[in-house]
């Protein structure tokens, strides 16, 4: 039931009215023609109705706090409560984005420290925290690549190379930065096809965007050769940090030869996904792109032996690609990431890759032992791995989506399905380091059960889920008979 369907004209949560309420003539200075004639159709409900309505809606969600959520390439690890709590301190919440620096030293100190930590653990030379999501980090990165070539008056570089397994945001970003996209195939072992790459690079190459480990869940073994191939052709290397959790503390993107990267703090640095955002996608750059970093950045000076933090802007970084958000990005998310980074510290940072990789390899082995087909047998899993349900689809008529929906009934969120596109009927499974082996075992047991169900009663599995709040939804109707908002007319 929608909130509007609980509405009664005249009902209010009066306790929320602002304290000042005077005469009804106080907008008399606004010309009649600029005033609203008819009040907006919004719900009129009591405070308790609101709290009950949205609390009950929250219970119709899977979440990390309630379920194991092994979504590949999404890094659904535990989101520390302390991080949320500290970002919600009144002093942080009340700070206006344009407050004077003298009354912002607490916040700026956190941001400066976070920049320094991110720089060190990625092996980059500079970090700007401002991009508001991974996709905006990608945008910042590719825009810097463009600014670099433009500054050298190298205007012939019109192409960005992207492996075919890449996230959809990569090609979409390249286009937003005015580039053409050229896809590079991936070989049967999940590695970039080096021969094809060598053929593709040339004077038109502005750069290559890739993740490592790739979305195939395997480490790109010839990364150094890829880097030198692109560099020799005059292009730059972009690291999509979607899979940074797999290498955090083990390998730094800077040491693999990448010139620029983004980090998804909502993945690797444990900030909440919030039902689809807000995230944060800071960018890190090597020496060559330092002059182009997006603003604002936080700088530190010593004044009378005391640390003083201040914003760096166009005056300090004249060749910057500029601001990408109205203020400085998703500051509250950055505070949460800072909290997480400080709790992990020097030692904890190295453990992220170790234990996420341990969990993934353990789960992969257990799946293999249970008879599931691995997409890349013989390779190590990184922080994630792929199984293909092709034979189930072919022999039992139960496809990857059916399996995924049935899994919901067992209380597990489905892994990423049908991505990467090059593996048929695939599941991309990422357990993260914060899950215990008991949880991983439970998941594999559920898969074994579903396999059994598929063999005995395929139709039942194809009708799943059964114990969610709704059954499978009619997506075709949703797109054909667009119903994107409630309107009062629908009531009558």
């Amino acid at each position, binding site marked *: 039931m929608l909130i509007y369907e609980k509405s009664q004209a005249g009902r209010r949560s009066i306790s929320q009215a602002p304290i000042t309420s005077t005469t009804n003539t106080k907008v008399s200075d606004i010309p009649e023609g600029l005033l609203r004639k008819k009040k907006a159709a919004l719900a009129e409900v009591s405070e308790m109705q609101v709290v009950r309505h949205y609390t009950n809606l929250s219970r119709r969600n899977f979440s990390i706090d309630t379920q194991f959520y092994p979504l590949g390439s999404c890094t659904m690890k535990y989101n520390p409560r302390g991080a949320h709590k500290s970002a919600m*301190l009144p002093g942080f919440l009340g700070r206006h984005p344009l407050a004077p620096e003298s009354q912002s030293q607490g916040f700026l100190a956190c941001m400066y420290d976070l920049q320094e930590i991110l720089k060190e653990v990625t092996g980059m030379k500079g970090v700007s925290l401002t991009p508001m999501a991974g996709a905006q980090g990608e945008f910042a990165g590719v825009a810097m690549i463009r600014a670099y070539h433009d500054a050298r008056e190298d205007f012939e570089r019109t192409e960005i190379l992207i492996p075919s397994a890449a996230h959809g945001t990569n090609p979409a970003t390249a286009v937003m930065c005015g580039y053409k996209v050229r896809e590079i195939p991936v070989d049967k072992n999940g590695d970039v096809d080096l021969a094809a790459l060598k053929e593709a690079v040339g004077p038109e190459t502005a750069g290559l965007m890739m993740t490592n480990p790739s979305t195939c869940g395997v480490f790109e073994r010839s990364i150094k050769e890829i880097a030198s191939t692109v560099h020799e052709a005059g292009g730059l290397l972009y690291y999509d940090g979607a899979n940074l959790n797999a290498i955090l503390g083990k390998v730094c993107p800077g040491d693999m030869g990448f010139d620029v990267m983004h980090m998804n703090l909502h993945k690797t640095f444990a900030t909440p996904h919030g039902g689809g955002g807000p995230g944060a996608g800071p960018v890190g750059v090597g020496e060559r792109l330092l002059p182009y970093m997006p603003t604002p950045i936080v700088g530190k000076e010593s004044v009378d032996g005391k640390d003083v933090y201040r914003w760096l802007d166009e005056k300090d970084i004249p060749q910057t690609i500029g601001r990408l958000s109205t203020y400085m990005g998703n500051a509250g998310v950055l505070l949460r990431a800072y909290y997480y980074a400080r709790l992990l510290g020097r030692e904890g940072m190295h453990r992220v890759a170790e234990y996420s990789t341990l969990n993934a390899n353990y789960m992969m082995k257990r799946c293999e032992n249970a008879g599931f087909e691995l997409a890349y047998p013989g390779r190590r899993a990184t922080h994630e791995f792929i199984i293909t349900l092709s034979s189930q689809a072919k022999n039992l008529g139960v496809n990857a989506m059916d399996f995924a929906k049935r899994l919901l009934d067992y209380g597990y969120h489905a892994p990423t399905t049908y991505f990467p596109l090059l593996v048929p009927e695939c599941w991309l499974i990422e357990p993260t380091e914060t899950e215990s082996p008991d949880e991983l075992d439970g998941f594999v047991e559920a898969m074994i059960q579903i396999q059994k169900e598929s063999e005995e009663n395929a139709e039942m599995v194809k009708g799943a889920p059964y114990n969610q709040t709704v059954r499978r939804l009619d997506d075709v109707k949703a797109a054909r008979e667009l119903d994107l908002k409630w309107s009062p007319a629908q009531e009558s």
Partner: protein
Amino acid sequence: MPYIPHTDEDVKAMLDTIGVNSIDDLFDEIPKDILAKNFDIPEGISEMEMMRLMSERAAADSNVSCFIGAGAYEHHIPAAVWDVVSRGEFLTAYTPYQAEASQGTLQVIYEYQTNMANLTAMDVSNASLYDGGSGMAEAALMAIRANKKSKSRKVLVPRTISPLYRDTAHNIVTNQNIELVDVNFDSEGGNTTLENLKQYEGEDFAALIIAQPNFFGVLEDVNELTDWAHANGMLVIAVVNPISLALLTPPGEWGESGADIAIGEGQPLGVPLSSGGPYFGFICCKQKIVRQMPGRIIGRTVDMEGKEGFTLTLQAREQHIRRSKATSNICTNQGLVMTASTIYVALLGADGLSLVAEACHENTNQLSVLLTSLEGVETAFNRPVFHEQVLRLPVSSESVLEKLAEARIQGGIDLSTYYPELENCVLFCATETKTNDDLVAYQQALASVLAS
């Protein structure tokens, strides 16, 4: 080990199952010479130590009376809003790709879309964008795609629109060879007039952007501006403050046929100032151009038993399906903050929003009267405002604001930073959170700064 549950026995048993001797063996595909060395960062600390550090730093920035607006506004946020939003089921859910396991988030977005469409009197809304400034960039790109009559890659952007929005939008669209063309404003009214637009008549532009209220707080003649743009073959992009919409004509009703796209900063609807984010941008449009909309959209449908349910729809516009041909590279929305706004709007309703808007307007007008009663202080523009006002001071606004800050009053922003012609000008805002005492305290502080 913070957040890692494994015991030594767990690790040993897991390594045995995998068939390796150590965790390091799992990284044997990585070339040895690129393995990371020890990091030069601080040792890990405990939750207790960290909470203390964060509390100290947060406190360092507190105890100020804030009269800064300029696109981010201090409003009272009912206690219920963030209490409910902070439930783990909202906070730690992912994008609702598995619809059956995400009906909570999906229905909230549907209600959010309803709120925004009804507030703006537009046909449809998406599930939110990052923020107001980047939202304006997306709106400009959308208008260029949607205006089939125009071949132009140029958009008219009055200088009365936030300089921060203009900057952001420029930086985002410039690489696609899209030009945002400045339009000057009337120096007396602080608004954009037909006179200012005259020189562009007959030229091909994809759209005109109109802000209501504009960056100076001033109310524009949105009806005549909208009709002018439509008469000249342009689409109209409205940039609006959602709280003001309780009082002011919504974009869908501007002029003869209404704005085509409406965007804005959603922060005033229940989102704390929080140093500039996370906020959310909203974008609404006419039904006929919905397929040009960027970002996520939720639709209502039924399940296989005919029961009502909600799901992502029109995904063929999006990057995970269309890749390089998508309407935008945007992947996420600002789910959690958008959820906060949905709860905020439900708590206030149209009448509550009206009261907030009126109280803001009243406080700003009152503060204007108090401040302009001081010698040499005057309002810079003569048109009505919503909840912000530009003051012209007898001396440099930069130094006045600095001295006010010492008295822990953040008096506004120095407009000469963005508009060289507005020397000695300050833009301030007084929302419903300010009491009469707060307003008088500002007046007294300014009086003593000017006297010194």
